[in-house]
Every structure is written in C-alpha cells, then in structure tokens.
C-alpha cells in the first residue's frame, strides 16, 4: 500500500493520518514494555523516574536490583522452581499433545469436534475457575502443594497451544508421503519419526514454546495449586507487586522481556524454516 503519484491532497492527508494512527497504536503496544527497562536500573527503591535518572546522571542508575535478583534466596528459589516446573509441564503437554494432534488429523475420527472442544477448553475457561476447581480437587487427591500437582496443572494449560500449532502444520501435510513410506515397508512408528516428525517439528517446537511460556508466566493456578515450596517466578512477582516495595520485579521483568524477544526470534526463524521446507514461501 504505497501512495500513488497521482494522489489528491485529501488522499495524501488521509494516507499520512492513517500512518500516524498506526504508529500510535504500535507505540501503545510497545511503550509500556519498554518503559520498564530503564526503570529497572533505578538507583532508588521506587517505581518512578527520579530527577537524577531524567538528567541521565550516572548516580541515578545502578545494577543493584539485578544483584538483588541474583543473590536473594527467595528470587533464586522461585527461579529454580520455574525452571523445574516449566520444562516438565512442557514435556508432558508436547508429548500428549503431538500424539493427539496426529490422531485428530486422520481422516475418520469419531466425535472430532467434541474432542477438539474439550482439548482446547483449558485455554477458554477463565483461569480463576480452573484454578479454584483444581485447588479443591487436587487438595482432595493429595496433589495440592506438590510439584506434581503444579506440573500437571500447567501441562494441561499448555495442551491447547500444542494442539493448535501442531494441527496447523498437519493441515498442510501431504498424506501421500506417509502412504509412500508405508508402501515401501515402513511401519507406522518408523513412518511417524522419519516422515511426519521432521515436517511437523516446527509446529511441535513452537507449541512447546507456547506451553513453556504458559507455565513460565502462569500465576493464578500456581497460587491456588502450589504452596510456598513450589513458589514460581510469577508468584514471587505477584507478591512483589502486592507486598514489598521492591523494584527487583522490574529487573526480573527486563530479564523476562529479553527472554521473550529471544523466544520470538526463535519462533520467527522456525516459521521461515517451516515455510521453506514446504516450499510455501520464497524464504
């Protein structure tokens, strides 16, 4: 959409207004996240820009909140828990999810719609309902306040993302490939790992990333299902927002932003790779 040479003044004005509007929306999207970053280097213990910071003086800035994050027991404990819980949950939801997505992509699946609806539901049901339901139910079966409980809860929350992304890669999947493999004598398992897996791998990985970030970012369910022993990073941040006057959460936030940029880049690269493999895009 570029402006043609013969555009009238009204068209020109509209064209630039439209661009400005879009720029403002992009600003609205990104600015709140970016504003966190300088604040995390605040030498003071508050959430506001100090006069020293605005004057760009060196004494207004410090790394002490980062130092606090890396040395404070509570934060380190929370980080360790997050790093323990998220991969486990991811492995569970990816392995169950990929199998099911492959199953769902076959041509004759009875009750496909209903099954799909159930599997996507963890994404749709309001978290507070899932959380309180799990709270009571997991208490009853002895899973409340255990790692296993939190892992299971997070795994099920990650399932819809795996189903969605893997199903999406399977939609464009050429079925004659598996038939060809079967024709040449490969068993179903061999076919799966040799033919299907490499092709749906980008979908599996991005589903896994979604599942990972779901667990890594989840606070409502863990507040209910977990206990102090399973305190995760978001939980500690939530307490920080409610409880202590500590800009350490801003430092953590900056680290998480860096992480999401990293994840985002990985995803984008994966997407390009997937499209190149399938010859969908010029690359």
């Amino acid at each position: 959409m570029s402006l043609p040479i013969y555009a009238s003044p009204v068209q020109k004005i509209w064209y630039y207004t439209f661009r400005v509007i879009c720029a403002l929306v992009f600003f609205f999207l990104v600015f709140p996240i970016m504003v966190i970053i300088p604040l995390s280097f605040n030498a003071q213990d508050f959430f506001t820009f100090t006069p020293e910071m605005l004057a760009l003086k060196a004494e207004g800035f410090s790394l002490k909140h980062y130092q606090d994050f890396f040395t404070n027991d509570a934060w380190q404990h929370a980080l360790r828990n997050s790093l323990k819980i998220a991969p486990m949950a991811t492995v569970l939801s990816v392995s169950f999810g990929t199998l099911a997505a492959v199953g769902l992509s076959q041509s004759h699946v009875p009750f496909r719609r209903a099954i799909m609806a159930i599997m996507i539901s963890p994404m749709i049901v309001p978290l507070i309902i899932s959380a309180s339901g799990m709270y009571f139910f997991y208490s009853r079966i002895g899973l409340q306040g255990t790692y296993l409980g939190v892992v299971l809860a997070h795994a099920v929350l990650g399932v819809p993302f795996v189903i969605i992304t893997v199903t999406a890669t399977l939609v464009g999947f050429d079925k004659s490939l598996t038939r060809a493999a079967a024709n040449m004598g490969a068993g179903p398992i061999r076919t799966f790992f040799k033919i299907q897996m490499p092709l749906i791998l980008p979908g599996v990985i991005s589903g896994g990333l979604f599942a990972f970030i779901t667990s890594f970012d989840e606070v409502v369910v863990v507040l209910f299902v977990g206990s102090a022993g399973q305190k995760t990073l978001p939980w500690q941040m939530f307490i920080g927002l409610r409880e202590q006057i500590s800009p350490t959460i801003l430092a953590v936030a900056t680290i998480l932003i860096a992480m999401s940029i990293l994840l985002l880049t990985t995803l984008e690269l994966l997407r390009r790779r997937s499209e190149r493999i399938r010859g969908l895009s010029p690359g």
Partner: protein
Amino acid sequence: MSDKNLVLASDGTSLKRSLARSLKRQKIRALLLIAPLLLFVLLTFIAPIADMLFRSVENSIVADTLPQTVKELASWDSDSGQLPSEAVYAALARDLKIAVKAKNHTKLGSRLNYQKTGTSSLFRQTGRKIKKLDFENTPSFKDAFEKMNKKWSDPAVWQTIQQFSNKYTDGYFLAAADLTRTSSGIEEVPEDQRIYYTLLLRTLSMSVTITFMCILLGYPVAFLLATLPLRSSNVLMILVLLPFWTSLLVRTSAWKVLLQNQGVINDFLVWIGIVADGNRLELINNVTGTVIAMTHILLPFMILPLFSVMKTIPPTYMRAAKSMGANDFTAFRRVYFPQSIPGIGAGSILVFILSIGYYITPEIVGGTKGVFISNRIAYHISSSLNWGLGAALGAILLVVVLALYWLYDKFVGIDNVKLG
C-alpha cells in the same frame, strides 16, 4: 449369489469388508493416539471443574451435622407460625452436643449465616453453653434453648434450618442472582446487599468496552500489516507479538508504573502543561485503569485473527471498485470492510471470552470499581470462605463463556485459532 459382482481384495476378502475393516482400524488407531491426552485433560482439568461446580448445589452440612433434628423437623409446618415441638429441641440438643465435640457447629453456623444473618453467632454462643447443659435434669429443652438464646424461639431460624436440610440447595444460585428465599417465596435481597447483578453487568460492559477498543485500535494496524509488503509487515508483526509474548505480570506492573497519580503519564502531561499538577488524572484503581491495561493486553488477540482474514482479501477487489468509480472511502466501506467482518467477529469473540474471565490485571489496577466477577469469585474462595457462592458465580461465568465458545466454534471453528 452375487459373488461374481463382488470386487475382491488381494487376500480374497470382499473389498467392501476389507475397506470397512481398514476404516475401523484407522478409527481405532486415531482414537488410541488421542486417548492419552483426552484422559489427561478429563482427569486433570474437566474433573476438577465439575467437582467445583458441584459445590454450588451441595449442601450436606445441615443434614450431616444435625441428623436427628432434621428428621424431627421434617414434620413441622413452617407456615404455622408455631415453634417446633419439644422433640425437635431435644434432638437439637443431642445433635449439638456431638457437633460441639467434633467442632462442627461453628461451620454449620457460618453456612446458615449466608442465608440468615445472625445464625453464626447463635450457633457459636449456643455451642459454648450446651457443654454445661445437664441432659438428665432438663425438664424442657425448649425452655433451656430459649434461655441460652432468645433467637431459638424465633420460627424464622427454624424455617432456615428446615429449608436447608436437603442435601442439595439452590440457595447459592439464588444468592448469586441477588435473590433470597423467604417464607413468602423468592425475593430480592435488601438493596444495600445487592451486588452480583451490578457486578455481572459491570463485567459485561467493561468486556464490551475492551473489545470495542481492541477493534478500534486493532483494525487499522491489521489493515496496514495485511497491505504492506511481506518483509516490512514481518518486522512490524514483531511489535504486535512482543507484548503477546511478554509476561502478563510484567505488562500489568508496567501499567501500574505508567498510570499512577505520580506515574509516567501524569508526570508527562504535567510537564507539557496539559494537566495542572494539583489536578492529575485518575487513571488507576478504577474502570479506566482496567480498560486501558486490558486493551493493551488483549490487543494482539484482535490483531492476529483480523490480520489472517485480511490477508485473504485480494487487493484487486479494491482496485476494481475504484476503477468503476468508487472513491477510496466507498470502495473500503462497500468492498473491503464487509469482507473483513469475519475477522472482526473472530477477534471480538476471542477478546471478549478472554476478558470476561480476567482476574490478575483488574486485581492490581482495578481498585473497587474496575473489577470483574472473577475477582469476586477469588474473594469468596480465599477470603470470605463462601465456597458454594463462589462456585455458583463460577458456574454462571462458565455458562456465559461456554456459550461464547460455542458461537466461536460455530462461526470460526476452534481449529482456526491462529497463534502468531
């Protein structure tokens, strides 16, 4: 008979049979692949929710704590205006004695207090006194109870006990609709206690506002992304996806920093002179705060489906319209916009579903006016301990969400959800 007409497969069986068998095998194989996850979701997710929803009607505490009283009370006519018989009082004394020992009576008191205020203290006080009651030498339990607390000679207390002696109740759902059951039927609760209707309306109206804001902000951006060349749109897409991928708590805390009275936005407005220092805008702890922060959080969920629909609208249509004499605006309104409506629909339902159940963000930036029904559910689950009411509110919210989910599935299809 018609063997000649049968087409045979290589192993000699009829092809029809062979195909049917292979189809069955395929079905079984597909189901086997699906089964682990289905079981997993049913056990770890659906069962807990069903279990919680059951609490919204479950009411065994009265019958469990006061079994004999409930039995005796069954024959009492609550409309008679008379007090129950001596046998009921005697049964209550025996039941309470056991309940006090097991420390169950205060739980029952707080349960009945949801229906009739003052019952909680009635049971607590009676519990203290009943320990001293000499069962052998009590000529009239009726008098004894009346001496312990005057409320025991109020038929209304007995009506409440009788009314809730069933194992199941609709009381929580009534309460969730600001209704209560009195001797003269179902009535609205007193005005100073009506809260859920307002709250539900507020939840819906805030969700509508947020959805509308998302359309307003998301549409131009999606349009731009869909019409730009791939290379530049991919770069701009990152700006949409970055917030999508950033921790929810990070974004919420960012808004706290920005929206505060002494926060970045107000500081900026004061600095450029639009707003007087003494007259800073109130952007947080109210509806404004919730709407701004949640619009930001849910905007990507609007842009992504809009974008994927707009991507499929061929640009030639617009050009054709213009070549036939439509001006830009008409061409957009009559040709492009109608084709993008499915995208608006998909995005709106998605944003609406997600926003109606939000909890964390309103809790932090919403104050008292900018909170959703979810916050109320959390309050009942973890503070007021009225779990039944929390479950009933949850059930209502769930019905609304599932209805929308069904709509979404019907019009968009759940397999069509796109994630970046």
